[in-house]
């Protein structure tokens, strides 16, 4: 049984259907990616999981039980459109938000101290939000989201606005939270982070899920029989097609496509006949390619 189950959720807004029979299962203690182009319905789905809006039909289950508004306190939600009160001091604000999430003032103070030290931002406590940059404010928002130690974390576009150093810090924190037992759902457009972080994904397009599953399996199933080869001699088209071949330091680097019926070993046998092979690696499509391919509905011609 999955930790969070979304079953056949439908949400109709006046004029258009934002979600049309969406189902997904998030295993406990994993990072789950929610992908999809803008306007696909990701934020609506996240809002439904957070009990901010109610679905027209279908249900959301947490640990096998239908989710109620009371369960929301086990969720840490970092919305895409996030803000802070500009005129309030960082520390006061973080305390306020933590208390609204049900923490006592004492616990919140303790937890905040830990996280402010961890992120090395103790000096910000008495600063006003308007004095911070966007990226700085996002760090504070991240802390306020995870402060109450929620079992389920939902991040909507967590990396937008972060510089690479801080994005990396955030990635490490997310993985650390997972290792400590949290289940994490995040939506993003950044496919590299999906490959780095997610075990499973759902790709939402036009209110429906068009692709779902384990990242490694999805990539394997989308392979295009393309290999990158490093060889001593130049390769010539045989049972395989050469897509490109470059000469580098007296060695040849080639990208080839095998015929669909051959096995990898048969391909390798053919290659060995032509030259000594220094490296042989199957090229799996990136999530980015798969995303574009699935969403635009075209196959990638390579």
């Amino acid at each position, binding site marked *: 049984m999955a930790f969070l189950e979304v079953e056949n959720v439908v949400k109709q807004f006046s004029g258009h259907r934002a979600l049309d029979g969406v189902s997904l299962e998030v295993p406990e203690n994993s990072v789950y990616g929610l992908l999809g182009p803008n306007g696909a319905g990701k934020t609506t789905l996240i809002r439904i999981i957070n009990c901010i809006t109610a679905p027209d039909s279908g249900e959301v289950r947490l640990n096998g039980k239908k989710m109620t508004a009371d369960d929301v306190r086990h969720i840490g939600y970092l*919305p895409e459109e996030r803000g802070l009160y500009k005129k309030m001091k960082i520390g006061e604000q973080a305390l306020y938000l933590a208390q609204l999430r049900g923490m006592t003032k004492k616990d919140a103070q303790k937890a905040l101290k830990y996280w402010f030290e961890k992120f090395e931002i103790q000096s910000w406590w008495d600063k006003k939000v308007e004095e911070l940059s966007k990226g700085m404010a996002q760090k504070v928002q991240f802390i306020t989201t995870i402060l109450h130690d929620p079992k389920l974390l939902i991040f909507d576009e967590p990396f937008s606005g972060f510089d690479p150093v801080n994005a990396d810090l955030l990635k490490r924190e997310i993985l650390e939270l997972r290792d400590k037992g949290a289940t994490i759902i995040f939506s993003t457009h950044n496919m590299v982070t999906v490959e780095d972080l997610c075990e499973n994904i759902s790709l939402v397009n036009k209110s429906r899920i068009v692709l779902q599953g384990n990242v490694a399996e999805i990539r394997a199933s989308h392979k295009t029989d393309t290999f990158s080869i490093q060889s001593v001699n130049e390769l010539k088209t045989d049972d395989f097609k050469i897509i490109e071949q470059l000469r580098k330091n007296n060695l040849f680097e080639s990208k080839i496509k095998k015929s669909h019926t051959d096995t990898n070993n048969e391909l390798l046998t053919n290659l060995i006949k032509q030259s000594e092979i220094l490296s042989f690696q199957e090229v799996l499509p990136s999530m980015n390619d798969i995303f574009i391919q699935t969403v635009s509905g075209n196959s990638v011609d390579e």
Partner: protein
Amino acid sequence: MSKINLIIKREYTTRVMKKSFILLTFLTPVLMVGMISLIVYLGTIKDNKVKSIVVVDKTGLYKDVLKNNESYTFRFTDATVDELKKQEEQESDFAAVLYISDDLSKNASGATMYSEKQVNLELKTYVAGLLNKHIEEQKLASYNIPNLKEMVEKSKTDIDMKTIKWSEDGKDKEASAELAILIGMITAFIIYMFIVIYGAQVMSGVVQEKTNRIVEVMISSVKPFELMMGKIIGIALVGLTQVLLWVLLTVAIGAGVTTFMGGDIDPASIQKMQDMQQMGQMNMSAGVNGEIADFMSSVAGLNFTQLIILFVVYFLGGYLLYASLFAAIGSAVDNETDTNQFSLPVMIPIIFAIYAGIFAAENPDGPLAFWCSMIPFTSPIVMMVRLPFDVPAWELALSISILVLSFIGTTWMAGKIYRTGILMYGKKITWGEMWKWLKY
């Protein structure tokens, strides 16, 4: 602490700690008292310059009548008015010219006063008083009745009519219509101000939360309704604090100023009033002290406990009614400039209410006053105006019930619009759209 309390606390403390709030709260009473003191002070300053009046007396009868006093001296001349006018143009050493063409006991309009500037009331009253008194005595003397003067003097009375209204407990209370109107208008105006200023604050607070995008963060931990009510109640408390501080500070500063200036000014101004009354042949028996005593007894005649309780009830009722509407508008729009279009229909009844209140003061039991004190959108203001005129208990009960039911209704409605509105971005909102949200 429950979530709504946290929200109320935040709304309250952030607003009360603001420099603008502190400044406004403490400066307003100072300015009010300062302005009133300035007016009182300027009113009591005496024009020390002695003005001279040139008298052209064709009859020669009044040389002894027009007596100099500390403000005016009279100079008699044979020159004509035209000559004096020319003289005035070149170099003036007199304030006015009094021209007496005829025996005033035969022709009452035989005296004219010329001056370059408007003749002030004090001078006119003084001169007319002297002449009147003289003619009166002259006429009395012409009847040749012994001791007539004394008889007339004795027969003079001053009817100091008191207005007393019968109350049900059998006690008579002295009432002053002017005071009732004054208190009614002041309380009504405070409610009006409060609704407009703090209603607008609720609206801009909601808009700010929305444009800041903090609302998404908030909404994941509190219900939209809690967020809205927390803001409305928090701001209501800010308003109550402000009004309370204003009252206390005004009283304190007022008391301070009166004791400080009191010894210096009051006797002088009272003396002056007395002088003027004497000159105008007014009866002095009632006296200033009598008037003050009347005023004080009218103040005591009003039911203050009832007034204060009902003030707070209508104050909060009216505010809650409008604040929820303002919150709904704030939630529906994307930025503050868009609020104008939607806040106008809400502002119209408030502005109407203040005019209705002014008419209600003139006729507190008329149909306009009655209906406007029942309709919840105008009742907080109009009822406050009617209140000092003793509104029947059933009317009060009905009006308050309607108001309470209405604000529950508008709050519920606003909650629905708010819930949808705050998460809606970049959409041009129409009235039709808002109507649809109500039905979600």
